[in-house]
């Protein structure tokens, strides 16, 4: 039995020393200036044209998708939507730095990462219309995407639950000998949950190759960051867990990309977690159920509108000679048309037949659920008008 010494690294003092906020500076990585030029001393990460353009175009696409779906919700075509406007770089820039074998466990505002992985407009729509083409079978509210082939874990509403799960998933990847990590996204609000504490501590102690990616966008619904925590953001917690930490400008796609790339290398090579805090701002309302005018000013929003990540990226591409204004206009128009077309198609597709209601509770349908389904089916046949979505197909 080896002797343990939990004081091995502890120094001593003879005065009452208070350790407090401000003792440590956690600077934020910035590479791109708002005008698309590089900061002095900054080097752009290695990025080929195709990838750079894909990052930009995915952000543009998501901006369009968000706008259109908010409109669709206003028209009453979908029940709920949640936009990522202004935060696109955080999700897209980080997803671009991953391998497609890496698992993504997201919160709900990372549609950019999913689009980057190749989720199609139809797939987005099928989920939002809860129709039978949704591989998640339409059981959850809009925006709870999930796609196994793309290694994108189905989103769960309870906040923070995916954080310790990501540690476990990453541990499994390591044990299976996969050359892959897990990335776990969450907001600065969700970081207040007990699951955050458990997840980060366990990942550190159990050496899990996972990137914890916090989007600190200043708000959790109406609650501003300064009523959420009193420390220096979420990054300052990394130290307490012994987790390597990077803070990054979340509106700077190149900085996000560079930080995530580095974090992935560390996680994989050293088999350990890395925490990234991306400083950004939720320009959108929390969701279509929310109205932010009740808790923040237009002026505050405008300051952040000026930090638009998409324009920043476009300007850099332009300087590289990788950007074509006309093509971009076309891309936006095409995206709009695509979204509209897919939306029209998806909203007409049926929900799953009623048999589906008892599937996937267990691997098989147990006796009591068979009984409940049988009763339900006879009932629907008796009252077809009360259950218009399924009655026509009950046998």
């Amino acid at each position, binding site marked *: 039995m080896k002797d343990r010494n939990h004081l091995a690294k502890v120094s001593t003092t003879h005065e009452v020393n208070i350790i407090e906020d401000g003792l440590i500076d956690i600077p934020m990585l910035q590479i791109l200036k708002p005008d698309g030029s590089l900061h002095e001393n900054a080097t752009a990460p290695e990025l080929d044209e195709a990838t750079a353009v894909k990052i930009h175009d995915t952000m543009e696409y998501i901006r369009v998708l968000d706008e259109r779906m908010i409109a669709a919700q206003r028209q009453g075509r979908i*029940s*709920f939507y949640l936009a990522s406007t202004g935060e696109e770089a955080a999700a897209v820039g980080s997803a671009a730095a991953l391998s497609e074998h890496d698992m993504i466990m997201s919160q709900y505002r990372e549609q950019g990462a999913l689009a980057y992985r190749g989720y199609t407009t139809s797939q987005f729509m099928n989920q939002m219309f*809860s*129709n039978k083409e949704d591989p998640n*079978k*339409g*059981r*959850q*509210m809009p925006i*709870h995407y999930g796609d196994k082939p793309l290694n994108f874990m189905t989103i*769960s*509403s*309870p*906040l923070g639950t995916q954080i310790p799960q990501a540690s476990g998933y990453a541990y499994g990847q390591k044990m299976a000998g996969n050359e892959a990590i897990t990335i776990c996204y969450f907001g600065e*609000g*969700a970081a*207040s*949950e*007990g*699951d955050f504490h458990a997840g980060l501590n366990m990942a550190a102690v159990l050496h899990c190759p996972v990137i914890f990616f916090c989007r600190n966008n200043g708000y*959790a*619904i*109406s*609650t501003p960051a300064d*009523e*959420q*925590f009193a420390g220096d953001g979420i990054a300052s917690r990394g130290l307490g867990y012994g987790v390597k930490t990077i803070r990054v400008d979340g509106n700077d796609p190149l900085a996000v990309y560079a930080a995530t790339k580095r974090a992935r290398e560390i996680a994989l090579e050293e088999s350990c977690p890395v925490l990234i805090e991306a400083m950004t701002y939720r320009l959108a309302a929390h969701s279509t*159920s*929310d109205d932010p005018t*009740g*808790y923040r000013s237009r002026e505050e929003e405008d300051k952040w509108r000026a930090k638009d990540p998409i324009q920043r990226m476009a300007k850099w591409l332009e300087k590289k000679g990788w950007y074509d204004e006309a093509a971009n206009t076309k891309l936006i128009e095409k995206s709009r048309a695509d979204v509209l077309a897919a939306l029209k198609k998806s909203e007409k597709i049926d*929900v*799953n037949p*009623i048999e*589906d*209601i*008892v599937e996937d*509770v267990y691997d098989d349908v147990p006796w*009591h*659920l068979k009984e*409940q389904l049988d009763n*339900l089916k006879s*009932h*629907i046949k*008796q*009252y077809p008008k*009360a*259950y218009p*979505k*399924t009655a026509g197909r009950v046998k």
Partner: protein
Amino acid sequence: MAKMNLLQAINNALITVMEQDERVMVFGEDVGHFGGVFRATSHLQEKFGRARCFNTPLTEQGIIGFANGLASQGSVPVAEIQFGDYIFPAFDQIVNETAKFRYRSGGQFDVGTLTIRTPYGGGIAGGLYHSQSPEAFFAHAPGIKIVVPRNPYQAKGLLLASIRDKNPVLFLEPKRLYRASVSDVPEEDYELPLGKADVVQEGSDITLLGWGAQIEILQKAADMAHEDGVSCEIIDLRSILPWDAQTVAESVMKTGRLLINHEAPQTGGFASEIAATIQDKCFLYLESPIARVCGLDTPYPLSHEKEYMPDQFKTYEAIKRTLHY
């Protein structure tokens, strides 16, 4: 009297008690300046200051842990959990702490001043995580009370009674009814009793028992049955724990039949406790088995929400089956 919807009645109850008792503090996620995502706490921060109405960090276990401590100190916390579906991170604080605080200390310390408010229930296209009815999970935890109002009048009177009751109360608000309709609510202070069921409609052929938003469903089903000449007694349980078995048993001894309706999944739902108790107390009076019309034993599915719900049609059919057993 004023016309209020259920949310306004809640808000009004909170104002009433906060004006009277300085020790009352209202908090939870987005509860402060914003007034809560459903606006149940609107303007309380303006009226009573940030110290008495405030946002908490996003941690349900923390909210209830904090509330337990605050209550044990003698303050009167009214803690909000944003959705009933998100109360489970606080399960340990409620079931192991709130419920056992008084008992374990021999009555030296208690959290009797605590009230936990949370919206519950489906029918709002909320899917798995904005629809659950968690009452039965808590009904197995001796030491707490569980209360559910069915309309604005009940909401104000029961909430005031819950806040002032000397025991911790889990107050479940049927969110489908929040803005569904307005009704007359006294502007003055009043209380409705905890632990007492309310006979909503008298009848002689069958007792229909439910709580919260499902009372409307029972009423609709009773109206349908009335067309067939069936006379239904409707009881709103109002308190799930401790519950008023006497009123229910008396009714069943009269009607000989009982149907219980709730939204939560059937297995292990609170209807099972009622059925188990009433078959014992009323064995010789029962003319047919006690019927349960409940949610399916599945998570709450968005696309099949209508099919999942224990609605008036299912209830009406069950009434008929029970009568023609």
